[in-house]
């Protein structure tokens, strides 16, 4: 989805995040988290804005945009690209795999026509692979936005996704 973020909106999110978490280096990950939470992704221009807000060379804190980029790109929960209206995550770890996860993932890929990390042309879906979600006792598991679905079968995939417009 081409989510247009206005300059002001982004500034406001960053200001609020710094207000909440502080302007030291250890606040960086929480700040990035707030932006990702609010917008679904971290726009490139946010990195420079954060840097300008928290750099205090006189206290020995001096970061380049590349530092911020390296952090934002390291953690899997952050996206650096705009995402669709609904985010579908699936776990491909062994516990889900041995109880039928392979077939579910295949069905997900076929149904959405997406590879992990891709967003559909109509902006409805983004598909992500996620690491184990710790709900393995009901595997295979998929997560759509914040809703968790357990004991998923290939047949259930289309029914689950039909709930999301």
């Amino acid at each position, binding site marked *: 989805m081409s989510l247009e973020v206005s300059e002001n909106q982004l500034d406001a999110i960053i200001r609020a995040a710094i207000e909440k978490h502080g302007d*030291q*280096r250890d606040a960086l990950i929480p700040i990035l988290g707030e932006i990702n939470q609010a917008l679904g992704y971290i726009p490139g221009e946010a990195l420079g804005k954060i840097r300008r807000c928290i750099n205090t060379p006189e206290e020995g804190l001096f970061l380049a945009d590349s530092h911020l980029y390296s952090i934002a790109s390291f953690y899997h929960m952050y996206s650096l690209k705009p995402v669709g209206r609904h985010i579908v995550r699936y776990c491909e770890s062994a516990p889900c795999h*041995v109880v039928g996860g392979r077939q579910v993932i295949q069905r997900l890929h076929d149904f959405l026509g997406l590879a992990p990390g891709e967003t559909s042309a109509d902006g409805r879906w983004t598909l992500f692979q996620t690491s184990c979600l710790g709900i393995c006792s009901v595997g295979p598991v998929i997560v759509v936005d914040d809703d968790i679905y357990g004991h998923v079968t290939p047949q259930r995939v289309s029914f689950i996704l039909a709930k999301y417009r």
Partner: protein
Amino acid sequence: MKPIRSMVLVSNDPLSIEHGAGDVFQALQAEIRRLGLAEDIRVGTIADVGDWEETPLVIIYPEAVVYSPVTAEDVPILVEEHLLHGHIVKSLLGKMHEPVGEIAWLRTRLGTLPVQQRVVLSRAGVIDPESLDDYLLHDGYSALGKALTSMTPAQVIAEIEKSDLQGRGGAGFPTGRKWAFVRSAQGQPKYVICNADESEPGTFKDRLILEGDPFSVIEAMTIAAYAVGAQDGFIYIRGEYRLAYRRLENAIQQATQRGLLGDHIFGKDFNFHIHLHAGAGAYICGEETALIESIEGKRGQPRPRPPYPPTYGLWGKPTLVNNVETLANIPPIIRNGAEWFHQFGTQRSRGTKVYTILGNVNFTGVIEVPLGITLREVIEIYGKGIKRGAQLKLVQTGGSSGSIVPASLQDTPMDFESWRKAGVSLGSGALLICDEHTCVVDLAKVILQFFRFESCAKCAPCRVGTQRLYQLMSEISQGRGAPEYLDEILVLGRDMELLSNCGLGQTASVAVRDILKYFRDEVEEHIYQRVCRAGVCQIPGSPPAEFSMSQQPAAQAD
């Protein structure tokens, strides 16, 4: 506090919430108020119950009756019959086909499941995890009180050392010794970190502890801080664990309000503050130095060790890093003494262990049992046997970085000592049970895919090695493998073990190595005959899966 007659608990794990637990909770409160019972009956929530189809659950104490699944429409009948007239509503009972998670324990108490010995999960599913009062009524904070008023820091450490508690994060390092290192380390300030970045696939014991009994971890960290001389603590929790995060946030707030956290705890000259730090999705941050880097606001890439965190940790200061389950053992040990703790487990491995049972068994979920029971016991007693009467083929222990245990070793007692001898790591406590329909090549491929994705790419042996191992296994699974691949896998695996900077690279090849040790013939079939006997790998031009399966004897571990 006014006595109450009944306590009603509603499950509110993510799955229950999706099935309307919030409505049930509100309906219960409204109905109880309407009938004028609000003074006598408390409504609370409990943690994970693990069962998918049958949520949400309503559990009523002191009878410990479990109703499931309950909808908001059921509530008026439930309240009127059970809470007003005192009759059990049979029509809402026992729809649960297989008890899972906390319910397993409730069933234990009701006499339908074998007894578990619970130390760290003793309160989970019994108390309202969002209520400090509830925690206080169940021995909460008596350990901290005892430590602060009648023990010196050195005595606290001595007690933990005497208990022989070993770290439950995977490595099994003696906890008391680690505390002593931090206490004697030079440098101020000192920090206490709770490692709640539980990311090992198949492991969710820490989530259950944090969701079910968050105050116990807070209390334990406070005891640790008193013992090692720290004023600030951090809980690094996975970004995915939102409910656990909220519960901890609430617990910290309530404890601070009551003076059990903050300045002058118990009126003593002892200050301790806890900061919550959510991860952002990186398996590697479970490694303690990567975790520390991440708290500092950097990429979560491990530091070279030594120096270890007890001397050089957060911001270069002495830092104690303990796993959630390890910490949850601390209050009961301090409260009851080291001798008491010795009644659980074996001579060499004291205490209980929380396991998650997964895969092709009839019961999947969490159990807490003494160290030293065997895999066979876990599978047959707690797992209720392999699904559909199939044969056990192998068990993967401790998540992706864990070992592969063939069926022939299932009678080895599960304790740190015996497993170390058998070359198996007890790891995080995940037990992934695989039946004969599992293909070892396919399993190895999935495990390596995970490491390839999660490698932090700081050091070459891991960055390149995980990619190459995956590539080789992937070729084999497609029937394009060459005999020399197996040697390359073993050599590469050994190199990664010796040369990688941290545990991720060092253990990434463990599963493949074990598979080649116990199931080499099956891997070779993929190469020489281009056949997958389990019928999982799709090998072009090989006989159809049904044919190859019927021609092969049921997979047997050698």
